């Protein structure tokens, strides 16, 4: 069975055809992105563009995209961002849904969280997000990006911050921005120094403690269980069961958890090692 739905931020599809005593159902979130070139004015080979696309911000030198550089950048963006977010979480199924029976034994599958980016031609429409992209001149090392305006260096790993021991914290900006496109906010939102009602782009929202600075939704590249929220929301929407505010509903793990038989469900066992099945 394949069950899908379109949400404002992404499409979600649940595939239970993959289920057997060892394999879980798969929930795939798909972001349909349309990338749009920003080139120097009047067809020139070189030009400038303001940080954040804001006229009062500093200018950076840009160059015209070529067919080759454009295709390469898009492919690299899609491949590396999808690889970062794809297949990293499993959701424990705490509801009697999607169960299968084999050799007289009932199995309850969990959910493997998958992710895809569809690089969709801008002319086709139907995108979840349209992203403008500048190609920086070779003399430039930085451009002021945001979630809808990227630059050609955003897929590179660069130092974003420093931890309490003076160690560099590295990040590839595009994976952080894709987190935003999935609906994730900055790591410290909700803490006293980053109230949800304030400016959640404030520097403190990117993490104050080292552990938070290293989060991908802070200044680093590390995933946290909280980053499974888009998939948990997807499962609540698709199954009509549970609530993401209840920690045990579609609870996330960063390790594969195998389908369970009723006795294992009853003890709430999490099978992280391949079990013996008939």
């Amino acid at each position, binding site marked *: 069975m394949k069950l899908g739905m379109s949400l404002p931020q992404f499409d979600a599809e649940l595939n239970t055809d993959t289920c057997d005593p060892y394999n879980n159902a798969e929930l795939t979130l798909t972001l349909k992105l349309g990338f749009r070139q920003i080139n120097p004015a009047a067809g020139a080979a070189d030009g400038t563009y303001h940080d954040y696309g*804001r006229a009062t911000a*500093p200018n950076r030198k840009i160059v015209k995209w070529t067919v080759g550089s454009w295709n390469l950048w898009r492919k690299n963006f899609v491949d590396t961002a999808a690889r970062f977010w794809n297949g990293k979480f499993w959701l424990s199924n705490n509801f009697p849904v999607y169960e299968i029976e084999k050799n007289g034994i009932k199995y309850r599958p969990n959910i493997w969280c998958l992710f895809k980016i569809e690089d969709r031609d801008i002319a086709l429409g139907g995108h979840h997000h349209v992203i403008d992209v500048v190609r920086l001149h070779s003399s430039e090392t*930085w451009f002021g990006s945001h979630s809808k305006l990227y630059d050609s260096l955003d897929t590179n790993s660069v130092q*974003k911050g*420093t931890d309490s021991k003076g160690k560099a914290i590295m990040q590839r900006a595009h994976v952080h921005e894709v987190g935003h496109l999935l609906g994730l906010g900055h790591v410290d939102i909700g803490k006293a120094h980053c109230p949800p009602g304030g400016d959640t782009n404030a*520097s403190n929202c990117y993490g104050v403690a080292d552990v938070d600075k290293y989060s991908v939704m802070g200044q680093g590249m590390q995933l946290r269980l909280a980053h499974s929220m888009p998939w948990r929301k997807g499962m609540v929407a698709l199954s009509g069961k549970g609530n993401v505010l209840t920690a045990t509903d579609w609870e996330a793990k960063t390790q594969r958890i195998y389908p369970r038989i009723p006795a294992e469900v009853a003890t709430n066992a999490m099978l992280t090692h391949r079990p013996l099945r008939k």
Partner: protein
Amino acid sequence: MTAVKPDRTVMMRTTSRNLSMLILVLSGMAGLLGPAHATGKRCQMNAIERSKCIIEAILADISRSYTQVGGGGISAIKQNSTTSFTVSISQEERVDLLTYEASVDGKGKVSVKKTGEGTQSP
């Protein structure tokens, strides 16, 4: 938008007696500031020199306390009033705004205190 946060005070003794110590401190704190050539006389001489002394003290504090070293660097230093300056630092998704209050006493001692941290979002 601007959250006032108590912070350290950077003191710059600018008498010639302390000049060598000042050079040492500034070199250690700022690294990129170059020779600390501020003197008491210079910091009191005129408005240009006074504001230069204040900005140097602010930059020293940023070098020491601002840890998000990625981004596009300092994009603006704006004088809000005779004694207040705001430094803009470009980052992905935002511009950090650090506001300082400064004073220069009769002996040429420059003090700066961070009085606000804010953010400008695109």
